[in-house]
């Protein structure tokens, strides 16, 4: 989660506006929940500058997200907006808010485990148990490391038999 220090009234207003923009691929989360918005500031001439970062380098939703931000802020009264695309520091699932993780689970996507657990480089490494978002069982297995979008893997629950997406640690 990002620390918002000494936030001005205008900045807070922009953050609240951004919190209402859903991620195009996982609409249950806002782009703020996902940690895609890294920074909000106001330039000398009173225009907002928003720093965003892609989850994966090839994330096809980034152009869409940029358009959504411009439209939302235009409706909030900011015609001119500077968007800064930051590569560094690299996005990580650690930036996902706790509230975001809870929302993901309710939506039926298993939220990312904490970082140290799954990022093992060894071949055939057993991923740590991922909890089924439906029945909460840890008796699950990985069907494929790659799922419906770059950020997800495909799992199935041995207990309730439901297949589900896992938002993989990154």
């Amino acid at each position, binding site marked *: 989660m990002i620390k918002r220090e000494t936030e001005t009234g205008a900045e807070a207003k922009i953050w609240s506006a951004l919190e209402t923009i859903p991620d195009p691929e996982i609409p249950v989360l806002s782009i703020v929940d996902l940690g895609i918005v890294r920074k909000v500031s106001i330039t000398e001439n009173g225009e907002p500058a928003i720093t965003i970062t892609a989850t994966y380098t*090839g994330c096809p939703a980034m152009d869409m997200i940029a358009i959504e931000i411009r439209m939302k802020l235009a409706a909030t009264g900011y015609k001119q907006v500077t968007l800064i695309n930051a590569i*560094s520091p*690299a996005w990580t699932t650690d930036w996902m808010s706790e509230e975001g993780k809870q929302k993901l689970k309710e939506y039926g996507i298993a939220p990312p485990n904490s970082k140290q657990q799954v990022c093992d480089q060894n071949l055939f490494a057993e991923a740590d148990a991922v909890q089924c978002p439906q029945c909460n069982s840890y008796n699950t297995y990985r069907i494929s490391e*790659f799922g419906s979008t770059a950020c997800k893997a495909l799992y199935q629950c041995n207990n309730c038999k439901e297949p589900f997406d896992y938002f993989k640690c990154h």
Partner: protein
Amino acid sequence: MSKHLTDFILHLADSTLILGQRNGEWCGHGPVLEQDIAITNITLDLIGQARSLYQYAAKLINEVSKLSESEVPPAEGFKAASEDTLAYLRTEREFKNFLLVEQPNSDWGQTILRQFLFSTWQYYLYQQLKEKGSDTTLAAIAEKSLKEISYHVRWSGEWVIRLGDGTAESKKRMAHAIQELWPYTGELFLPAPYEKVAEVDFDKLKPAWFKKVSDVFNEATLLVPQHVYMHTGGKTGTHTEHLGYMLAELQYMQRSFPGCEW
């Protein structure tokens, strides 16, 4: 100096883009749905990485062309160099990708092997770029890409083992793929003139790559070829006949309608 740096970045970008384009040909044709999705996910990562690199190269080129009027102006219909002009409007001779990545697809085993050989090279090279960090933009791109590359190395390595140590048929095909692709791996460690500026440590890169590849081949009960003639030239723009056809398809729209958007 700066020309060398942009050439090096273009070499990384071109290799990544061209492999992405080749893998993209599998979309809808993978052996099973999950693996079709896997290879196209990897394609998306490769093209994303290529975009970051082209954007950086374009920025450097535009800075230089501001300084010197003699610099060749960007192509007709474009005000300045961009990721699009670099990907869509350079000719075959200007592309600096490895010969390995432009080779046509044959079976799934060959695609898996190529991905494994390439991703393992990428993994160790990008580690160097990230750790050295003298070029902060390149280090940042390397760091971000490494998260994705780690998945690629693991996924493709597991498949090399599954197929090599699988049925008689899958083993035969993997052995054939090695015979076909190994002659293109020498180029991964043959320094190009522009690589001096990037301070790539080939004395470390090659043994690290070789150890990883040998370990996986061993576990896959596959043999590492010995004394093979190596094809070279891709890094400096001398390509096999296959690249021209790829670019014809890749660049068609921008060549026909310069600057078109949709």
